[in-house]
């Protein structure tokens, strides 16, 4: 298992990153101009990486499937971004954020990476502020903070409920600056459909021009995947409907290990599904739990209007079960608690699959104005979708698929096991363990892009200066392009009867039912069978209209869904393999008598990194043992 060397630098945890930066190989400015880097994805990670690399003088090519880089799904992040500024004087520190993330991730993340993410968080805030991100301020003009799930300090910077939009536009603006300076070339409406390896190194990608349908070859000395997560494998999720796992999956098929694929976060507070046509679920930011109290009626089937249910008939179940953290328990805990109440028959709303999030007390105490200032746009969003005014009656919420902690396995350099292939942001697995804390995603993505990758990639690029620009007429490019073409032709020539969306919905339902918030051996095995059958049906009965050589949104969907089938198989395999409950991965067989998750540290204190061995051959498991040198591995309790 030599390939799983995480390359963690020596030294104490607090010194590792500094020492690493002091000893990393550098590339001189004249040489940087001769080196090409491809970045796939333009979210908070991709945009920030591309602009930072452009500033350094590398030749950067950036790709996104949207019409503009600004539309990447980081734009939809709502609540905030963490940083260890300790502006509130409430005892925050790098160590505390590090510890909160390790604990929040249920001791399944790599210490050194998490510590580094916490370490650079302050710089991220400074940089965004300098870029003009209008974070909330107090009357003295200083930045202000709020508190988020799973922590006891206020370290979350925010811009109303649109923090992601503002950070995304910040990194997009730095990207724009580099585009105008000519260091970055933007390729929008392009989808990466394969990774090209030359002599075992990542040297390029094959993309499909989504307007003309043309397949294009792009070469570089290194490839950075910032292609986000695969939460849309559940079909209904809080993600953008086009978010997908294809880029990461294609890299996986070329040899990159996929780590902890079954760690998928189910967010506790989204608007419940209203009907069968629904194409996505809208998140209600976790920040609402600062002031919103979550409850269900104490009686089953209480049909009274929520405003008519008196205090004594309400069960504030989070406050009851977790008095220390109350409504601010981490996401996985909050989600399961909601599911538990609904499964037990206490759910509300037309489907019984919802709980109340109530602002009555907060409004009474702080007034409409304060609540509006903090959450105005979220309340409005809720009103627009449901037609219910949350100032007047409680919101109905339910968990939904949100974020995937799993992703491509990377070492401390953020490089996958394929030399020259990097994965940053949600596309990698590194920082969130088995559960991500709120407001830690923007932080990690931006940190990876602006402050970590530019250093770590230099270590690799220093050895590339003798490699001339990679020509795209190599046989490796020919083969990769041919394979992509064949697969697309195969998809379009099935000419069956069902649409890609039909299969996607069915797949999503299987995954949600058997591999969602709660999992068990029997269900997972059943899911594996169902996915296999559905996959067969997909490859025999799919219908994709129109042609390949034009804008064809159905072939785009078909390609993504086809990869989801394979990814779903791996996700289930991983969930079956991990016979313990940790973070978002809750195995029914492994719980305490009072229904809390029970880890098995003796057997599963490792990262499960899966290697693709070929079609119809089982994946091979590689284990990266997790060593905790600074923190003591404990039972995660929020009681």
């Amino acid at each position, binding site marked *: 298992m030599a390939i799983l060397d995480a390359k963690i630098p020596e030294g104490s945890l607090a010194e590792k990153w500094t020492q690493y930066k002091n000893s990393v190989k550098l590339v001189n400015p004249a040489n940087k101009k001769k080196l090409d880097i491809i970045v796939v994805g333009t979210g908070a990670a991709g945009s920030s990486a591309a*602009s*930072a690399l452009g500033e350094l003088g590398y030749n950067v090519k950036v790709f996104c499937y*949207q*019409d*503009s880089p*600004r*539309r990447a*799904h980081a*734009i*939809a992040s709502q609540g905030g971004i963490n940083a260890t*500024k300790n502006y509130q004087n409430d005892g925050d520190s790098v160590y505390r954020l590090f510890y909160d993330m390790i604990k929040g991730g249920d001791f399944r993340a790599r210490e050194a990476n998490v510590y580094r993410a916490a370490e650079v968080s302050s*710089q991220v805030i*400074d*940089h965004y*502020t*300098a*870029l*003009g991100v*209008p*974070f909330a*301020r*107090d009357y*003295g*003009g200083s*930045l202000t903070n709020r508190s988020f799930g799973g922590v006891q300090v206020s370290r979350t*910077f925010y811009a109303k409920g649109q923090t992601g*939009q*503002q950070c995304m*536009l910040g990194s*997009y*603006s*730095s990207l*724009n*600056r580099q*585009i*105008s300076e000519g260091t970055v070339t933007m390729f929008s409406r392009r989808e990466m459909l394969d990774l090209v390896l030359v002599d075992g190194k990542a040297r390029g990608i094959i993309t499909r021009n989504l*307007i003309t349908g043309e397949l294009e070859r792009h070469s570089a000395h290194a490839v950075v995947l910032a292609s986000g997560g695969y939460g849309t494998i559940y079909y209904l999720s809080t993600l*953008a*409907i*086009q978010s997908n796992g294809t880029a990461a999956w294609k890299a996986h098929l070329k040899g990159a290990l996929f780590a902890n694929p079954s760690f998928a976060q189910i967010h506790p507070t989204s608007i419940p599904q209203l*009907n069968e*046509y629904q*194409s*996505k679920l*809208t*998140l209600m930011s976790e920040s609402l739990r600062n002031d919103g109290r979550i409850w269900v009626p104490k009686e089953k089937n209480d049909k009274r209007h929520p405003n008519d249910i008196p205090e004594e008939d309400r069960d504030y179940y989070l406050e009851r079960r977790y008095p220390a953290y109350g409504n601010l328990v981490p996401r996985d805990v909050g989600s399961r608690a909601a599911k538990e109440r609904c499964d037990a028959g206490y759910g509300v709303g037309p489907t019984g699959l919802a709980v109340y999030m109530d602002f009555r007390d907060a409004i009474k105490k702080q007034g409409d104005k304060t609540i509006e200032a903090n959450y105005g746009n979220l309340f409005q*969003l809720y009103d*627009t*979708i449901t037609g219910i005014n949350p100032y007047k009656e409680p919101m109905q919420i339910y968990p939904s698929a949100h974020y995937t902690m799993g992703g491509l396995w990377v070492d401390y350099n953020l490089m996958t096991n394929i030399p020259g292939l990097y994965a940053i942001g949600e596309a990698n697995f590194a920082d969130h363990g088995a559960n991500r804390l709120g407001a830690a995603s923007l932080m990690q993505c931006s940190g990876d892009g*602006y*402050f970590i990758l*530019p250093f770590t990639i230099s270590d690799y690029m220093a050895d590339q200066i003798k490699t001339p620009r990679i020509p795209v007429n190599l046989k490796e490019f020919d083969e990769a392009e041919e394979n992509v073409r064949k697969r697309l032709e195969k998809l379009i020539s099935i000419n069956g009867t069902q*649409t890609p*969306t039909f299969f996607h919905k069915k797949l999503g339902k299987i995954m949600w039912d058997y591999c969602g918030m709660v999992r068990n051996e029997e269900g997972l095995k059943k899911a594996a069978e169902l996915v296999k059958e559905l996959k067969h049906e997909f490859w025999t009965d799919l*219908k994709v*209209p129109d042609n390949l050589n*034009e*804008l064809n*949104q*159905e072939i785009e969907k078909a390609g993504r869904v086809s990869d989801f089938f394979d990814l779903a198989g791996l996700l289930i395999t991983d969930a079956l393999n991990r016979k313990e409950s940790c973070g978002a991965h809750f195995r029914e067989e492994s719980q305490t008598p009072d229904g809390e998750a029970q880890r098995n540290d003796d057997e599963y204190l490792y990262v499960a990194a899966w290697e693709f061995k070929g079609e119809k051959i089982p994946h091979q498991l590689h284990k990266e043992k997790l060593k905790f040198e600074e923190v003591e591995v404990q039972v995660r309790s929020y009681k």
Partner: protein
Amino acid sequence: MKVRLKIWRQENAKAKGAFVTYDFEEVSPEMSFLEMLDALNQKLIKKSDSPIAFDSDCREGICGSCGLYINGRPNGPEKGISTCQLSMRAFKDGDTIYVEPWRAKPFPVIKDLIVDRSAFDKILHAGGFISVNTGSAPDGNSILVPKEYSDLAFDSSVCIGCGACVAACKNASAMLFVAAKVSHLALLPQGRPEARERVKNMVMEMDRLGFGNCTNTGACEAECPKEINLTNIARLNREYFTAKVL
């Protein structure tokens, strides 16, 4: 419920394009407008027809991908929303609904209801940023920003770049879009050092791309999904004069 859809179909940028009528009966008032189009597309594919191409991604009104001109208004009959947030509750059984792409010279149609909005990106390349290198920023609290200005900057910065302002304007002017970005950065002390160059370059690029001119009509403000207002345009004018004259 049942609706009659008259949808602009255009095979590609060079094709002529025309309205095609679809009588669609399987509409539920709970659907969003785009979910209704999704459902129609499923039906079209099964009939071996070509589905209607339209942009959309986040489906929660923040990414700015979607944008349809519905019954003579960007994003349909309701105020302050993007197309993905429009519900079929806004229509009645039996309604005829015209669906057109954004129309403006700098936004050429790519296919059906999809237009090329890269002109917006180009305007931002011309100056929609603060030039600060990664790693060189001072501590976040070393730049104090009066809350009032910070809030105003936020109000301008919520633009989602969807192009509804251009689509709504009788002159296909991009002034509200440009004004929002110029205002956002001009209101913050961090943005002041290059404010003059920024506004000059962005306006020059906007003009070069062939957008129309502002006639202070206010259709942009009335149709902006994020309700960005005309004070931004006045601020843009002010910033421009002072940059040019003083």
